């Protein structure tokens, strides 16, 4: 039998349906891979082995009866930010280390209803705050990719898988799950996808329900998939997206058949915008070259290329670092030692709060709560929060204006390839700059997708990002699919952990 874990989700789905193999075989093959790799990668933070095998068995019974949903028997990894009923959900934070939800997030419920199998919960930056997965209370997650040395051998320096959805990107790239859920507040799906050679899709704000996803910055958070291919992303989004009356920001709009649209011809005369502001100072030559290559592919496919201007681009990141911490400081106020898991005693209730939060939150989360508290505090609201929301309007207007003439925007996903664990520490602002190309998309509520299209001079993956009009994920997936085909077969990570 071919190695089941190297199949794409689409192929595995067809294989199960055609009874070439069972969900239990597929699931056990993944559990074995996790067993081999997880010590080295730290991608899964907890497994649900008994429940996993029960779900796989139930899927096989359905398939035997000729029943089953669109994801029947497909084993998935779930970012530990999605509440899973009776399965520990921690947001990779000590403050939630004992939290066992009594309800299911809408996105994961959609997946189980479609027949998917839960393998376990995936590592992430604590409360999804970070770009490297180094701020997790469970320790950093490791990228399956390593840098190549001049003699062709591998440098053993562990690289970050990106963040915050680092467990999701690492697990998908290492064949530990068929696909993973992730969330994106400033780039947390697309940047890790770019760092690991996977596809990361951040849908339009409101496309997926936020119910049961641990909240970071509510006006920016959105769930989406990290997958091996664009087709797999289409299949996953199809199931994850839904209108949810329990999330008032979820939008009541049809979810098209994304996989079917992938095969349809792309709209004639499609126009792709290239924003001049994204040619930032000091951009590495290889990123520039990757971008040019993407432009060439789209040109040869008959697309029109147009230079555009998004003048407020450079202000997106500083505005984000007002809005996201402000919303986080408010959302995280609920972790007070009363309702969830951890409590650290004190002489009175205020000291109990102070001690619980001091011990329960890690350094980056505290930093952001404090920044958020400061910008919302008396006398500063107008100067910071209100100012940032006005800048956000300008960023949105930049996109509204260019979308009158173009269909989507093409940019690099990240300013560089994956960096080493510990290499970008010390100055928080340096870490924040990782999201320079992705954060505008969240600020404007737009859909974005990162597609792996090439390799860095270090032998690690690089990605290009497409940004679409609101709710036009379908066109985004079509063009992403085209770029994926143009890029051809890219290398896979070497699975160095297996030789140990």
């Amino acid at each position, binding site marked *: 039998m071919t190695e089941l874990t190297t199949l794409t989700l689409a192929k595995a789905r067809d294989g199960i349906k055609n009874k070439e193999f069972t969900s239990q075989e597929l699931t056990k093959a993944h559990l074995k891979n996790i067993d081999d790799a997880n010590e080295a990668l730290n991608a899964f933070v907890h497994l649900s082995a008994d429940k996993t095998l029960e779900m796989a068995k139930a899927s096989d019974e359905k398939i035997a009866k000729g029943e089953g949903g669109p994801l029947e028997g497909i084993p998935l990894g779930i970012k530990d930010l999605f509440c899973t009923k009776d399965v520990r959900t921690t947001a990779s934070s000590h403050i939630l280390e004992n939290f066992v939800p009594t309800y299911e997030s809408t996105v994961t419920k959609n997946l189980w209803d479609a027949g998917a199998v839960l393998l376990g919960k995936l590592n992430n930056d604590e409360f999804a705050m970070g770009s490297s997965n180094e701020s997790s209370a469970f320790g950093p997650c490791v990228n399956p990719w390593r840098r190549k040395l001049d003699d062709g051998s591998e440098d053993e320096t562990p690289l970050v898988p990106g963040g915050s959805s680092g467990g999701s990107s690492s697990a998908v790239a290492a064949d530990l799950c068929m696909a993973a859920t992730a969330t994106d507040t400033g780039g947390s799906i697309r940047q890790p996808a770019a760092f690991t050679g996977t596809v990361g899709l951040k849908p339009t704000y409101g496309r997926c329900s936020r119910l049961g996803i641990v909240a970071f910055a509510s006006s920016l958070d959105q769930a989406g998939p990290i997958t091996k291919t664009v087709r797999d992303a289409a299949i996953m989004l199809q199931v994850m997206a839904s209108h949810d009356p329990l999330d008032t920001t979820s939008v009541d709009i049809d979810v098209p058949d994304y996989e079917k649209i992938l095969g349809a011809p792309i709209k004639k005369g499609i126009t792709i915008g290239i924003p001049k502001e994204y040619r930032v100072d000091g951009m590495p030559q290889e990123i520039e070259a990757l971008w040019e290559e993407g432009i060439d592919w789209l040109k040869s496919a008959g697309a029109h290329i147009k230079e555009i201007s998004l003048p407020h681009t450079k202000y997106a990141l500083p505005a984000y*670092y007002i809005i996201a911490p402000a919303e986080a400081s408010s959302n995280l106020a609920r972790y007070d030692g*009363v*309702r969830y898991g951890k409590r650290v005693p004190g002489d*009175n*209730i205020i000291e109990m709060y102070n001690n619980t939060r001091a011990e329960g939150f890690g350094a980056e989360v505290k*930093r952001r709560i404090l920044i958020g*508290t*400061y910008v919302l505090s008396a006398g500063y609201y107008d100067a910071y929060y209100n100012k940032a929301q*006005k800048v*956000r309007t300008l960023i949105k207007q930049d996109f509204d204006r260019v979308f009158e003439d173009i269909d989507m925007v093409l940019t690099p996903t990240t300013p560089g390839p994956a960096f080493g664990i510990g290499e970008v520490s010390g100055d928080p602002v340096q870490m924040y700059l990782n999201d320079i190309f992705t954060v505008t998309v969240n600020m404007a509520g737009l859909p974005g997708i990162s597609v792996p299209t090439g390799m860095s001079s270090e032998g690690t993956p690089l990605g290009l990002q497409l940004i679409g009009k609101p709710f036009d994920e379908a066109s985004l997936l079509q063009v992403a699919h085209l770029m994926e085909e143009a890029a051809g077969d890219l290398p896979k990570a070497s699975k160095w952990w297996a030789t140990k």
Partner: protein
Amino acid sequence: MKVDQATVHHIARLARIKVSDEDAKNLEKELSSILTWIEQLSEVDTEAVSPMTSAVKTNMKQREDMVTAGGYPRDIVKNAPVSEDDFFMVPKVVE
């Protein structure tokens, strides 16, 4: 914008996070560096701009004003560190 250690302690008190003097020293530096960096927003003319209120234009949804869930206090307190008779328990706050 620079913050001093007294300000760090003040914000930490508002945020209900205990911060030691040692932590405050580091936070003074880190928060000042972040706040100085975001100061570049002052270059942007926002005189005639309204603050953004929603990322995607939608109409405010309405629903029937009726009870749709509830009656499961045990689920609500299940994750509380201390609870009694389906109530959350906290240290004494009133003498």
